[in-house]
């Protein structure tokens, strides 16, 4: 819930701002002086969660580092919609890597800065789920093992959105993508496949691992502010709904992310050196239906008939998360 303990009635700690809060207790996003690291005019779709997540993360990183951030960005939507040559939406030093090697590029930047003795400059690597979970995982694992001084942020929209919504190792079971048709007895992506990268990161024993969503701004900003000054490899995994790929209404982007955490399918937690040290508890618990039924990629679970069997299996995943992470 409230990460920094702001107990404030009316809009409490859930809204972006509050006219009655002391300026130092306000979020970065409430500040009219925020850096707007990703500025207007980018070509992300209406209601893009990834664009929002990237601005949240980098504006917080900018504030936490006094404006000293270098960013390496893997190929993917975030790179494509922000930098059609010769325009750029970035207002931070920013470098485009290949699809799969952003962790290595960021490690190199960190090494170069270390050689120059510029340890006040912080390095952020960012990638989509494809660039993290699939093609980028080798470089990422190496970076973790060497404990390079990089904050790696994965914007997880659960598929390869940039190339037309193909399945990734982060696509949830039963979701329809361009490569997992909603046909047959087990329509959409299979159960039991895919990778839990936050768990993989924890298994490397790196200093800091966290999950977050764009529906809880204070929590996300708090995690970035905590991660930025830490040394060594840090990993933050942010759930960013994609209206196009998920078949959700652009206006519902935040709502979908909120439902993902409130039903338990996306546990929000943080871990230090592999050990879970904090979870964000569910505030108003909902069933997985609340989450699934507002997304076109799960529409085959609701029509022509409600697939209670499949929905139950998904509910069991949520229930197991709730138990494992003590989300209630």
């Amino acid at each position, binding site marked *: 819930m409230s990460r920094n303990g702001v*107990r404030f009635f009316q809009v409490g700690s859930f809204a*972006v701002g509050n*006219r009655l809060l002391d300026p130092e207790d306000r979020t970065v996003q409430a500040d*009219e002086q925020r850096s707007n690291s990703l500025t*207007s005019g980018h070509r992300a779709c209406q*209601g893009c969660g990834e664009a929002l997540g990237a601005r949240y993360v980098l504006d917080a990183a900018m504030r936490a580092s006094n404006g000293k951030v270098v960013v390496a960005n893997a190929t993917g939507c975030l790179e494509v919609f922000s930098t059609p040559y010769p325009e750029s939406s970035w207002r931070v030093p920013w470098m485009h890597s290949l699809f799969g090697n952003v962790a290595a590029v960021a490690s190199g930047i960190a090494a170069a800065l270390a050689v120059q003795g510029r340890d006040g400059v912080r390095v952020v690597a960012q990638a989509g789920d494809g660039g993290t979970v699939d093609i980028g995982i080798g470089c990422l694992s190496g970076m973790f093992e060497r404990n390079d001084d990089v904050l790696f942020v994965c914007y997880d929209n659960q598929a390869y959105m940039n190339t037309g919504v193909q399945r990734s190792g982060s696509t949830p079971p039963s979701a329809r993508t361009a490569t997992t048709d909603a046909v047959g007895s087990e329509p959409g992506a299979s159960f039991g496949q895919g990778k839990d990268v936050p768990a993989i990161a924890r298994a490397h024993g790196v200093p800091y691992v966290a999950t977050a969503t764009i529906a809880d701004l204070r929590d996300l900003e708090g995690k970035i502010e905590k991660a930025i000054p830490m040394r060594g490899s840090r990993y933050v995994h942010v759930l960013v709904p994609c209206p196009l790929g998920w078949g959700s209404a652009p206006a519902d982007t935040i709502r979908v992310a909120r439902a993902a955490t409130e039903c338990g399918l996306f546990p929000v937690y943080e871990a230090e050196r592999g050990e879970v040290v904090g979870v964000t508890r569910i505030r108003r618990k909902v069933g997985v239906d609340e989450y699934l039924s507002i997304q076109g990629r799960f529409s085959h679970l609701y029509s022509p008939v409600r697939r209670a069997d499949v929905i139950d299996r998904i509910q069991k995943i949520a229930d197991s998360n709730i138990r494992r992470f003590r989300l209630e």
Partner: protein
Amino acid sequence: MRHPFAITLDVASSLANKTGGWRVERPVFVDRLPPCNDACPSGEDVQGWLYAAESGDYKGAWRRLVRDNPMPATTGRVCFRPCETACNRVQVDEAVGIRSVERFLGDHAIGEGWSFPGRMSTASGNVLVVGSGPCGLSAAYHLRRAGHRVTIYETSASLGGMLRYGIPAYRLPRSVLNAEVRRIVDMGVTVETRHRVDDVLAAREDGRFDAVLLALGAPLAHHVPIPAVDSAYVLDALSYLHGAASGHPPQLGRCVAVYGGGDTALDAARTALRLGAEEAVVVYRRTGSQMPANSEEYEQALAEGVQMHWLSTVARAGDGELLVERMELDDTGFPQPTGVFETLEANALVLALGEETDLSSVDRAIDIHSSDGVIDIGPTMMTGHPGIFAGGDVVAGERSVTAAIGNGKKVARQIGAWLSGENVSAGSRHPLAELSSLNTWYYADAPRTVQAELERARRLTTFDEVVAGLNETDALFEARRCMSCGSCLECANCFGMCPDNAVHRVLDPLAKGPLAGGDGVLRAGGVRPFAFDYDYCKGCGICVSECPSGAIVMEPEVI
């Protein structure tokens, strides 16, 4: 500029790419009418004054409050709070304690000695107000603020009408009432107490008044013939309460029966207990749930030991006892006699069967008509006689303090308009802010603050106020439970959650700072703390979905 190998164009910013062209719908800020404001019989801007109170700007809040209602410490105690019944927060957890905050502001203003803001215009009519209940006082206040000369004639020795001679002091302390009455009189109202108007036409002529307001209330007890033995002691509740309020209460004996089911009945029973009766029994024809009395007062009466005798009618008042007949509800919920009788001990029977008007002062004005005992008025609240208006309990409508105060405001405006030969233009009403247009996720979980009550022993022996006010911390907390339905509360969700940075803060050009953080006054003047940048807004509608208070809507883009 020299370009590196294979580069031909200068680096540019995406700001050159105006994504506003993608839009088919555009977000716009709106003001919707909060249900509390909609329900307030005095037409208070409840959400508006709570908004100022939330920031600790109590003076701003009070000033906003007294724009409509000059007696907030009074209504903060005795109003039946239709606002809280309508409050959207009922559906989230519990209604905002609007009345408790109103009382806090009213008491705070008395404590600080705040006076009303000055005159708003320089009208110069000479108006007679007959009767000094809440309707008359409110009208006097609004007429004075508009600049008119006002004279009040009042039969009783003191001003206040039923606030003074009906509602007992344990619900409305006289120090509070006096302070609020005095503040109105201090605006320069001429007052003549112990002045009963016997003939309104003569009074108007004698005083050369341009207009008259009849705010006569309903001061007479409704009488039902009840067979009684000669030695039976039967009196009506209004005169009993009037006597108690004036310091000359009739002695009723050990055991008192009150006949009726309204607030007046409960007030009479509670007063009797305080004045020494050992038992007070309310006899009512129907059941408890059908009682017209306010549920809050009912609970308090029970807590004080008032006994309830449902489904009974009084058949005969005897000497020290009552004969009552048991009733039964028929299929339509109407009480029917059963022929079964019982006897109750009662040294006195107090009748509280309703209040009626006394229209003898308008007998000679043949063009003032009445129906069912109340004066007929037109849409401008004028009676059939030009220049003579009426409001409050003497006309048809809800009988309550807040309704009377609202009537006073409305009639003052109508009198002013009539005197200047203008029409009052009916302001357009905004659409209602329904709960479905709010995103309640963002409101912190906050249970309602409970007002403390006096312990029972002191309630049975004194007229000390039963319900305590909130301290500042609790009042602030309670004010902050308001969800600002339908009005921007400056949470910055639109500003922070737009993926396209297409919402800007509006800076106050004078103060060179952000408007947000202000007290809402600027906003009320039409300036808003946020603005859309339609050059870049793609029309996703996240701002609409995530606006807690429903203050943004999507409108089709005109192409």
